[in-house]
């Protein structure tokens, strides 16, 4: 597959800006380093040409930003969507979170995004990172060059990519891919096969790392509530810091439950977590349970889908049998 270049995207964006198809471009902006990339709304050709980037570090799912930006900005917004982002895009539309008319979506291919933390484990002091065919070449401050293989430094969410196919766009750049076979439930199954004590130990050790920075929530495209229950003093469960092990769990259980049946498994929660807690394993547990008990369901496949937790059949499995099935 031909890799799509930053230039191609900039050229497209400029074209759409100049012919007044769109007024804004939601994309990724270069940072101080090659890898610290931020989502950004570009308004003019100049900034686009100077600062727009599409590289192996553009893991950020831009869909969520449309919720706020379509309301804030008057004109039409061009957004670039990687395959997995299109699921979130559809899910947000299903929930009426933004106005489709105000968005011009361009699907772009993605070969898997890289995790800078994984790169940093291999060396100290990065001066530059160059993408190669097999992975990256990292030049360090002390003039060393280290080559790393792509598979080893992929983001957690990209290691088990579920799809290279776009489910929403106005226009597609590059070639369309396919839905992939993947092993994304293996880790969940592994945990399920442990004893209750082992599972408790695992999660206790993981969740105790939580610093309640809310990065997972803020990155999550399903968490777009006008006001989050954890910020609402009237909700009865508001809290700002994990004062104890219960509240770590409460926060993550409630969050996972709130997005259950709506989560597209985009993996932003784990990507955003500064403590590297594998939060996606909570969401995937729900997805796996839903698939097993209520039939295969992928959130965001199409707009207007009815989610599994707002549906039922009279023959649904009994809660007690959910455990038994797991055995």
């Amino acid at each position: 597959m031909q890799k799509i270049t930053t230039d191609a995207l900039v050229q497209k964006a400029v074209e759409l800006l100049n012919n007044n198809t769109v007024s804004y471009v939601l994309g990724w902006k270069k940072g101080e380093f090659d890898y610290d990339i931020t989502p950004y709304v570009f308004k003019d050709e100049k900034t686009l040409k100077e600062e727009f980037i599409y590289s192996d570090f553009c893991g950020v799912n831009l869909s969520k930003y449309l919720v706020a930006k379509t309301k804030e900005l008057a004109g039409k917004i061009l957004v670039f969507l990687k395959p997995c982002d299109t699921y979130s895009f559809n899910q947000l539309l299903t929930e009426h979170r933004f106005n489709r008319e105000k968005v011009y979506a361009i699907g772009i291919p993605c070969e898997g995004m890289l995790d800078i933390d994984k790169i940093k484990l291999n060396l100290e002091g990065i001066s530059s990172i160059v993408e190669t065919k097999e992975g990256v070449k990292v030049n360090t401050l002390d003039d060393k060059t280290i080559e790393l293989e792509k598979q080893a430094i992929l983001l957690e969410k990209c290691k088990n990519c579920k799809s290279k196919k776009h489910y929403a766009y106005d226009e597609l750049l590059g070639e369309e891919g396919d839905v992939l076979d993947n092993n994304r439930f293996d880790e969940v199954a592994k945990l399920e096969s442990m004893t209750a004590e082992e599972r408790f130990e695992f999660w206790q050790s993981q969740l105790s790392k939580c610093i309640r920075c809310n990065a997972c929530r803020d990155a999550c495209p399903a968490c777009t509530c006008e006001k989050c229950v954890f910020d609402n003093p009237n909700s009865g469960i508001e809290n700002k810091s994990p004062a104890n092990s219960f509240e770590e769990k409460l926060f993550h259980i409630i969050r996972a439950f709130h997005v259950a049946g709506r989560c597209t498994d985009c993996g932003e929660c784990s990507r955003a977590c500064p403590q590297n807690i594998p939060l996606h394993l909570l969401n995937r547990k729900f997805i796996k349970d839903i698939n097993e008990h209520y039939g295969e369901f992928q959130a965001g496949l199409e707009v207007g889908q009815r989610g599994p937790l707002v549906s039922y059949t009279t023959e649904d499995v009994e809660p007690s049998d959910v455990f038994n099935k797991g055995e």
Partner: protein
Amino acid sequence: MQITEHKPLIVAFCCNWCSYAGADLAGNNRLNYPADVKIIRVPCSCRVNPMFVLRAFQKGADGVIICGCHPGDCHYTSGNYYARRRMAMLFSMLDYLGIERERTRVEWVSAAEGAKFSATMNDFVEKVTKLGKNKRLEDLRCKK
């Protein structure tokens, strides 16, 4: 060993139309069950928010049971079907986090099933008692 048996604290959410009435029937027929069970009346099992369940555990409950009309008999026609999915998912998640699965339960009790209500509570209390104190979920600050 000189350990006095732990008296568990059980919170039972009962839907107004079937299970709460079933509990009343158990009373009418003097079908005993342990006083550890405290019932909270909700209009329908679908009113039970996972938040309530977690809150109970946070505050020191050792077991939480949700009772509703039998599937197909919901006063609101479909409420218990939603409850069934939600609680199946929630309890499976708690299990996944290593919380003992015997601490949570969903049981369908009709207004005519006083005996089932009593038997269910006796059984649930016995199982939860065996597990002892709920240490994995509670908030230590909430204890005296």
